[in-house]
């Protein structure tokens, strides 16, 4: 039973030990073909995710931020194989996903996702109790037990099962539906939960409630979160580490406080100073960036950000920066951080930039 201690202590399922990342992503790539012309030939590719590597440690929350088209949602979908990657490997607790060691079905049982649109991600013909109990039944839990677990989870997410279990999605408010989606994601007792803009559609007062709920559930069930959002304030609040994406690549990754207070990548800095100030005496006077993000079909050469960057130099349009260490656990993909890159602000020699 779930009340009290979780039935499966997540720590018991730990195979690799605390030092092994729960999730390791290597060289993830997704190019969507664009077909056109009379013969429907492939004419170009949308380079939605273009070589992404990262790790999510056990028990942490990794926040992923970026503008539309940066590939953050595609990354989440690729992780769960909701779409097939063009290339790249995903390891879960040291085991390769899709290998005999860890089947895709088993991986999906341990990794669940909560989407932005709370309404379209629930079956309108099922009561919320049936929706939550559905997946455990697919994975072999007897119906009676699955329903009992669903009712427990409803209580856990703050919806009284006596009042709510028999309701249909349209009978709930947006915040209540998102609670149902969270309960459904937890029904399989996952270890990793992907939250793709899970609070973005909610009203501010409800958003705060759901964020608090997510933090409580994380402690209670020993969960690890991958939290995708465009709202920097929310990401800062919930994340231990933050990954900033730009046009399908990682621009910067590091501990949340470091990224927010001492960002290395000019894109991160611009993104942060684009946030409205909420101080009537210090309004923003100048937009930090001009124009929209470029089209991921034909991303700029070299550093993808060079077309909008205020520190751009000639070298930026020809050399693509690799993620380079900028401090403890802190990496940025900017030529100003890469030693000896040829950028005038780059550190000299092979030393590590501060």
């Amino acid at each position, binding site marked *: 039973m779930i009340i009290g201690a979780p039935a499966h202590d997540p720590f018991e399922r730990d195979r690799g030990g605390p030092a092994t990342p729960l999730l390791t992503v290597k060289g993830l790539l997704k190019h969507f073909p664009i077909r056109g012309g009379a013969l429907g030939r492939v004419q170009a590719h949308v380079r939605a995710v273009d070589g992404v590597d990262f790790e999510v440690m056990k028990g942490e929350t990794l926040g992923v931020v970026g503008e539309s088209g940066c590939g953050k949602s595609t990354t989440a979908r690729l992780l769960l194989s909701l779409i097939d990657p063009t290339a790249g490997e995903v390891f879960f607790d040291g085991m390769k996903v899709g290998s005999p060691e860890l089947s895709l079905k088993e991986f999906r049982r341990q990794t669940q996702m909560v989407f932005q649109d709370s309404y379209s991600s629930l079956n309108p013909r099922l009561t919320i109790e049936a929706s939550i109990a559905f997946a455990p039944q697919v994975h072999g839990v007897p119906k009676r037990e699955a329903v009992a677990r669903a009712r427990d989870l409803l209580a856990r997410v703050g919806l009284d099962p006596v009042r709510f279990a028999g309701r249909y999605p349209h009978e709930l408010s947006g915040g209540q539906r998102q609670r149902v989606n969270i309960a459904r994601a937890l029904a399989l007792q996952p270890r990793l939960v992907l939250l793709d803009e899970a609070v973005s559609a909610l009203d501010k007062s409800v958003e*705060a409630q759901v964020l608090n709920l997510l933090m409580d559930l994380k402690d209670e069930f020993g969960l690890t979160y991958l939290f995708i959002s465009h709202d920097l*304030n929310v990401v800062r609040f919930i994340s231990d580490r933050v990954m900033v994406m730009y046009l399908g690549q990682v621009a910067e990754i590091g501990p949340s406080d470091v990224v927010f207070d001492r960002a290395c990548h000019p894109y991160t800095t611009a*993104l942060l100073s684009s946030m409205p100030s909420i101080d009537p005496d210090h309004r*923003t006077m100048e937009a930090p*960036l001009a124009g*929209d993000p470029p089209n991921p079909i034909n991303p700029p050469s070299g550093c993808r950000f060079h077309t909008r960057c205020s520190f751009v130099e000639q070298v930026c349009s020809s050399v693509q920066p690799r993620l380079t260490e900028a401090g403890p656990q802190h990496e940025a993909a900017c030529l100003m951080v890469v030693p000896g890159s040829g950028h005038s602000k780059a550190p000299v020699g092979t030393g590590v930039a501060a």
Partner: protein
Amino acid sequence: MSAVDIRDLRVTFGGVVRAVDGVTLSIERGEVVALIGESGSGKSVTLRSLMRLHPPRATKMEGTIAVEGRDVLAMTPRALADYRGPIVSMIFQEPLLALDPVYTVGEQIMEIILRHEKVSRKEARARALALFERVRIPSPERRLDAYPHEMSGGMRQRAMIALALACRPKVLLADEPTTALDATVQIQILLLLRELQRDLGLSIIFVTHDLGAAVEVADRIAVMYAGRIVEEGTARELIRNPRHPYTIGLLKSRAHGVMEKGTRLDAIPGAPPDLARLPPGCSFAPRCAAAIESCQIEQPPSFVVEGGHRARCFRWKDAPAQLGAQALGAA
């Protein structure tokens, strides 16, 4: 004379849903007022009432709306068509839905100018071009011949602003104009609106759920809850010295500024009320930590805090201290 004068506006849909329940608001010429609130608070309904965009059969509108001295609720369809565009125009959240996909953006702007003014097509096109330059669309000549889907999100929003300004309106209504945009583009559009307001002397009503966006552009802010304005005042008064428990709750529940890891957000409990079954007293009372008995029975009137700063709360004097609002002043 105010640019916009709304008196005791009540909008009821289908006879039961009281979407706007007694809104009184006036906007001076050249003033920017932000209406903020959650979904269902009546902010967009109020805005759309100014253009009379609600389906007439299903909507009952009471009260008065005067825009530039004209009685909006009494207008005939013909007068309404003349009024929309040169007096009042509107920009929407999603430009891709608001623009016509089968005409170029230039044609859409010219169509409006030709409908309202006696000018040649050539002149209308020159005006459209000038508007595109005004809203800073790069290579404007070429963009006039673009279809909406050929533009990026930020560019489309600029095009829609150009469209709204085509007939030199006096009042611009903006319904969540930056909500669908990326952060780096949102700030550009907010700054553009501020600049246009200053240069053209527009009065703007700006509807948003984002307090940050409101503070960036607005002189005054009106906070709506369940169809009523619960607090209004200058942006500074509202942020530094909020009086209504809902405003205080909104400011406190922001993830912004919570620096310590593991601290919980100060969320407002519960959910907004059902507009078809509003409580007899203050609509916020069921969620309010400072509520007293009279809040459940009687609707609080609008109390004057100071000058134009008003709050609809019986406890406007002592509730802020009880709810810990002083800490916000420093933010």
